[in-house]
């Protein structure tokens, strides 16, 4: 039973770390998609007329 703290620390950091990385990756992906969409929308808008 004395080895269980090591087992839990090993598994906890690995599975917890992988889970945290996954959530962070999905957040980065969502933010990047929003930024990309904003750029595309801005590009689709008609260009403002130049001042005369």
């Amino acid at each position, binding site marked *: 039973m004395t080895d269980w703290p*090591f087992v839990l620390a*090993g598994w906890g950091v690995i599975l917890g770390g992988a889970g945290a990385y996954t959530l962070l990756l999905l957040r980065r*992906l969502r933010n990047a998609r929003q930024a990309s969409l904003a750029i595309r929308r801005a590009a689709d808008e008609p260009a403002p007329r130049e001042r005369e």
Partner: protein
Amino acid sequence: MKTRILGAVALLAVIAAAVNALLIVPADLNQGDAQRIMYVHVPSAWLGYLSFGVTALAGIGYLWRRDLRLDAVAVSAAEIGVMFTAFAIWGGMMWGKPVWGVYWQWEDPRLTTTALLLALYVGYLLFRRLTDDPARRAARAAVVGIIAAIDIPIVHFSVEWWRGLHQRATFGSPDKLLNPAAPAQFVIALVAMVVAFTLAWAWLMIRRYQLARIEWQIEEHGRLGRISAARRAAVAPQAPAAQAPAEEAAP
């Protein structure tokens, strides 16, 4: 949709393999429960190798084809590989303390070369930040990724070439894989975890690749914006100078 299905399958596989490894498979006679750490340590180490191998192959592909999609594959694999190599080192340390009596020993070739591998690919990720020109960055990173991959066989065969604390390779040869020394229940649990982790790796790779492609598009848009702004700025100072005499002449 297919990626979502892969993600769900990977998650279920990891949960099932983890329940089996932690609660169903009996403790090892000699190592006790500490041996259960091997079920996450070995897959993490395998995925570190796989990731850095993919980075090197994608780097070779980039230098050959000059296709930035291959650079996106390379950076995705490197980032995920750094994570899994760090996990392998952590798992090894947590196993090492109860079994060897130490968390770490610098004299051990496997441990030291693995730490070097991690440092090399952290360096690879940092090196990519030195330039914002995508083609130049991809070419330089490809060379670094290929050179760093030389350490992969050194890590793997270090336990055969030099003496240290670390035991010999788990999957050292096809014969060892087909006729394992450990009981079937232990081997099945380990293989199940390797398969589950590899499925999760594939899903992470797809998502990280998608991110790399979008980041590249945003970066390219920003770069083009800066170039056109610089061109406008180069033309702009001439306009007030041309208008100045007209303003002075006005009453």
